[in-house]
């Protein structure tokens, strides 16, 4: 058989499968849904995070008993982005009812003890089970401690002691990650959603054109055509992979639009997916799409029924999520061998691309090579299955 003819036949099959699945409304909507929902969820989550961070920037501190500590109130009001307000009488109830995130209580004996240079009590009323207000609570505590430290230094100076004696250690944290990387860490789900979009995008065609075709009884007439089995398998695979790549483009574009809409710079997150990223992202994920489509077609062909194939897909979808989940649980680090692991390679590439650190050509090549080699193996396997009488006619 001339390879040119085989390729033409494969393209005929691919075109038919794409046309067929475009008319499958329900399948189409399920793809659109899964492609769209991920990025939108991330967008909402990140937006809320950013809102909260901005809220913490202008800090309102309700204080009970402002008149008992006028110097403290004055000092707090002078700090940038801080304003002191009078707190409701029952501080604990107000916090418990979530009317206030945090309330500072100045007890009656504050002024006396302060004047006598004895530790003056201040109460911070907060609900530590509310994670959303923790940044505000932390800032209030930091401010109060800073005030205490300043007063302490002044008292030491008045007694002729250098405040440096109170600081045996000068702690300094040096941040090495770029803002872009920190953002990528927060948004580790974006690579995951892109990979899942690739998986879901190809799934329908891969199962419908193999397990589904057999169940409809249309496989037998197809096999009577004088086309080598590899042309049929390759055609179905090409159609599934193409749908996967289209889904990846959709998700990426959606992420690009969303990250542009969310202005994250003001909270120290620099994350932009622009048109210039689309090329590298596709270069990283397209080989993965070829691989997952080949994997789906092989598994669906092995399945006894369409239903069984769908069940397997539900399990397989964990594979593209695994690197994302693992890296959230414990840092994966970075090693050259990672590029050569089918699911991990593209994930590492994506994280770097989105994190603003373009990976080198070798990493791209290693990832693509493993994906392509695995695809070739799987297509050979599926072609073999298409020759098996037990597979063609069911068991």
């Amino acid at each position, binding site marked *: 058989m001339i390879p040119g003819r085989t390729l033409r036949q494969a393209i005929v*099959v691919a075109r*038919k499968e794409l046309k067929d699945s475009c008319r499958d409304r329900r399948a189409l909507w399920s793809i659109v849904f899964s492609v769209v929902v991920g990025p939108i969820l991330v967008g909402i989550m990140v937006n809320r995070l950013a809102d909260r961070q901005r809220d913490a920037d202008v800090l309102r501190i309700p204080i009970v008993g402002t008149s008992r500590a006028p110097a403290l109130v004055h000092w707090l009001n002078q700090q940038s982005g801080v304003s002191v307000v009078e707190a409701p009488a029952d501080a604990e109830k107000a916090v418990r009812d979530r009317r206030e995130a945090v309330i500072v209580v100045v007890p009656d004996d504050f002024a006396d003890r302060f004047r006598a240079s004895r530790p003056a009590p201040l109460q911070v009323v907060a609900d530590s089970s509310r994670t959303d207000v923790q940044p505000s609570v932390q800032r209030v505590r930091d401010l109060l401690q800073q005030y205490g430290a300043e007063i302490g230094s002044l008292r030491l100076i008045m007694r002729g002691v250098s405040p440096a004696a109170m600081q045996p250690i000068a702690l300094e944290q040096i941040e090495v990650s770029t803002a872009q990387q920190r953002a990528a860490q927060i948004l580790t789900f974006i690579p995951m959603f892109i990979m899942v979009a690739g998986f879901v995008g190809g799934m329908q065609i891969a199962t419908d054109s193999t397990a589904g075709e057999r169940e*409809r*009884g249309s496989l037998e007439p197809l096999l*009577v055509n*004088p086309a080598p089995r590899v042309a049929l398998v390759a055609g179905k695979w090409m159609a599934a992979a193409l749908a996967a790549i289209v889904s990846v483009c959709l998700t990426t574009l959606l992420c690009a639009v969303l990250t542009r809409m969310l202005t994250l710079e003001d909270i120290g997150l620099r994350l932009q997916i622009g048109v210039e990223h689309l090329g590298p992202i596709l270069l990283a994920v397209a080989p993965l799409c070829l691989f997952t489509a080949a994997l789906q077609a092989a598994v669906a062909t092995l399945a006894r029924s369409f239903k069984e194939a769908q069940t397997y897909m539900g399990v397989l979808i964990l594979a593209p999520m695994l690197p994302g989940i693992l890296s959230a649980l414990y840092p994966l680090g970075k090693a050259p061998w990672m590029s050569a692991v089918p699911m991990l390679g593209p994930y590492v590439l994506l994280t770097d691309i989105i994190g603003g650190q373009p990976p080198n050509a070798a990493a791209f090549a290693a990832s693509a090579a493993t994906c392509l080699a695995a695809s070739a193996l799987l297509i050979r396997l599926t072609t073999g299955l298409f020759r098996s009488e037990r597979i063609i006619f069911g068991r």
Partner: protein
Amino acid sequence: MLSITNARKRFGTVTAVDGVSFVARDGAITGLLGPNGAGKTTTLRMLYAVLRPDSGEIRVDDVDAVTAPQEAQAKLGVLPDGFGLYPRLTAREHLDYFGALQGIEPGRLASRTEELIDLLDMRGIADRRTAGFSHGERTKVALARTLVHEPQNVLLDEPTNGLDVMSTRAVRAIVRRLRDEGRCVLFSSHVMQEVSALCDSIVVIAFGRVVAQGTPDELRRQTGHDTLEDAFVALAGLDGEARE
């Protein structure tokens, strides 16, 4: 021309076809007659090269279908048991798909499609999706798809099964026309009237073996029965069951 010589096929412990031999000639309608489960479909599947015989020889014209299945398939038009249409494609798209797989160039395919639409009286349904088609309409689409590449040899597995009178007549007309064009038509059925009305030659198959072959008259003479139905029952070894 189709010839099958001493073909055997086992599935696990079941012997589906146990040494079948016959020839279907060009310009003739050959009927493969047998009760359900006799091995008709397995025999046809070996002829159209989706099943490989365990032993025996199968030739399509001058091509060995066992060693060169695709070359043999290029000379065949096949209507398998159960039509296997795509519900989301139109009738015309079915012809486009299989015509393209057969390698017919687009211009020729377009005119051939029109020809078949007229021949099978499918004008009204040509551009509708097959999802809601009646049994008769589905048969027409499947038959048109079988003939799109003008095959010299046509294999039809129970084509008239479950069809109404008008559709059955239409199928018979097509089958006769194919014979008159000099093609080799092999079709299977378990319905006596079907075979006697249409076939020039009959191969009776039962329990995976050919139990008789010849013209309808020859079969009647061979068994000493007046009607073909009695002859069939006697040949298929069903008379014991029929008497009970």
